[in-house]
């Protein structure tokens, strides 16, 4: 019988180790990748992931229901912002992002079909590195962590409309980068 993350959580805080392990299997990888893609530091990503799990366990009584995934990634996002502030290369997240024009990618179907999964992963990784921090974090929360738009709004503590706008703008940036890379790949492969 498949249990929801919240049910696993209830068991884990009572000392159920398998439930705790299951929770790690569910969220450990995405949380680690979230930190890794945003910090580009393996050790820091591991430390921050451990910190997230430590915090949720210490403040287990603070979780009053709702989405466990949203709670975990809210903690992860706050830790990331703290780290950015500590590093001094970032002030606060801007609420008002400049509007980006929707430029159609125009990539043909066969070109996309020709891109392998590994290639796609590599391109995504390269594009994420090129994205600005706000967009990268938003994209990571939605596509790496698998948060829905309402969950993203909850995690980022912003209105749903703002969350949608953020996702859309981040996607436009990412898509533009990816399409450019795919076009380059098509030229390289002679498609």
């Amino acid at each position, binding site marked *: 019988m498949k249990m929801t993350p919240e049910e696993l959580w209830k068991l884990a805080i009572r000392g159920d*180790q398998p439930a705790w*392990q299951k929770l790690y299997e569910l969220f450990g*990888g995405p949380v680690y*990748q979230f930190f890794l*893609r945003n910090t580009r530091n393996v050790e820091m990503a591991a430390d921050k992931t451990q910190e997230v799990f430590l915090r949720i366990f210490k403040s287990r009584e603070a979780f009053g229901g709702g989405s466990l995934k949203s709670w975990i990634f809210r903690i992860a996002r706050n830790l990331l912002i703290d780290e950015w502030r500590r590093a001094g290369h970032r002030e606060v997240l801007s609420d008002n992002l400049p509007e980006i024009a929707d430029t159609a990618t125009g*990539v043909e179907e066969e070109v*996309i079909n020709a891109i392998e999964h590994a290639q*796609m992963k590599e*391109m995504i990784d390269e594009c994420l590195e090129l994205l600005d921090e706000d967009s990268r974090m938003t994209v990571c929360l939605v596509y790496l962590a698998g948060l829905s738009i309402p969950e993203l709004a909850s995690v980022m503590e912003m209105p749903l409309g703002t969350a*949608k706008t953020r996702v859309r703008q981040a996607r436009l940036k990412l898509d533009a980068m990816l399409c450019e890379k795919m076009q380059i790949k098509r030229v390289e492969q002679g498609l």
Partner: protein
Amino acid sequence: MNCNELKILLSECESLADLGQLPKVTTHLKDCAACRAALLYEGKLRQGFAGIAGEAAPPDLAARIMAIQSEPATETAKSAESTEPGWLDQLLRSLQGFPFKVAFAAGLTGFFAAFLILRQPQLAPVNEPATIATRQKQTAPVPAKDEAFQLAKAGREPTGSHEKTLLLETTSAKKQREPGGDSMQLAMAPKEEKAVVSADDHKIAESSELGVAPGSEAEADTSAEEQIPGAVTFALDSSADTFVADKAAGAAAVSLADQPAASEPEMQLAMAPSPERETAKSVRPSAPARFAAPPPVGETHTRISASQIMSESRSKKFELSNEMFAETESSDPLADELRKLIEANAINLPEGFISLDELAMRGYLPAEKLRRLRPPTGSGWYLQKTAGQMRIFLKKR
């Protein structure tokens, strides 16, 4: 459905497989190659992200995170045991009420303030002790029912041993007082001084037995002391943690407390302004000194505990009362003159204050005598009838 609507659906939907099952989407996709490419791109992108998210974390991270659950469990168990509220915690928790804390702090502060004030040693010698309340000079009153007083008044021989002792004490006090010494001072003196004084007593007794006049340097010094009657100074005896009274004042204070009603003439005299008191003293050269003299200039006051003063002064009570009675009997010559005037004219006056103006109006007092007998402002001649005897003394109105 058009291409924009499909793009919106693509951006918001969580599962592309579910989106592809929608009939209107499949219909649009059949005819629109761009949307088919967009759907394909979206699928590839999500697979790519899923692949990234599924990348393995470092192997030690799993162990570190699994340890989080087990370690805090034991720690929390230990902390739960250690945070069992002890009696001190419970007490402190109960003291957390704000009013109680304020009251407790105020009480504690007051206690320490009082402690510091009372423990502060009096460094400078007290040459001029403060008087009680009104700063008026007060006398040690004599109780009317005093045993020695009654004995002296009765003029009979003491029969019992106690009465003999009283009589002996009285004569001893008189002997001490005659050469200039002060029984009040002796009564208030500390133990060391008492030892000296008791030695002097023996000398006096011996000299009186041998018929030798008991003159000594100490007595001469005492007589030379400046006397501030009625002065009572309290200070803390740091060794005994008790209040001590200045030796000059203790006896008066004790006597005042013990015998409030029996020395009206002494009170009147003490309350009179200093010039009049000097006059009275000069008129009564035989009157003994009523108050203890303060120590000579430069001499540090010796302090004795109030309890000592009380007990010692009580033992001297009979001497004092007898001495005061003797003084009352010798009394003010003006009072004697007034008494004789009343007795000579057989004026029947009620007990209470005597109206000199009325006597003058009735022709008993000439103007010259009226001026001389006029009591100081605020006081008057008081007529007291005791056992058929008439006493007249100054009393504050």
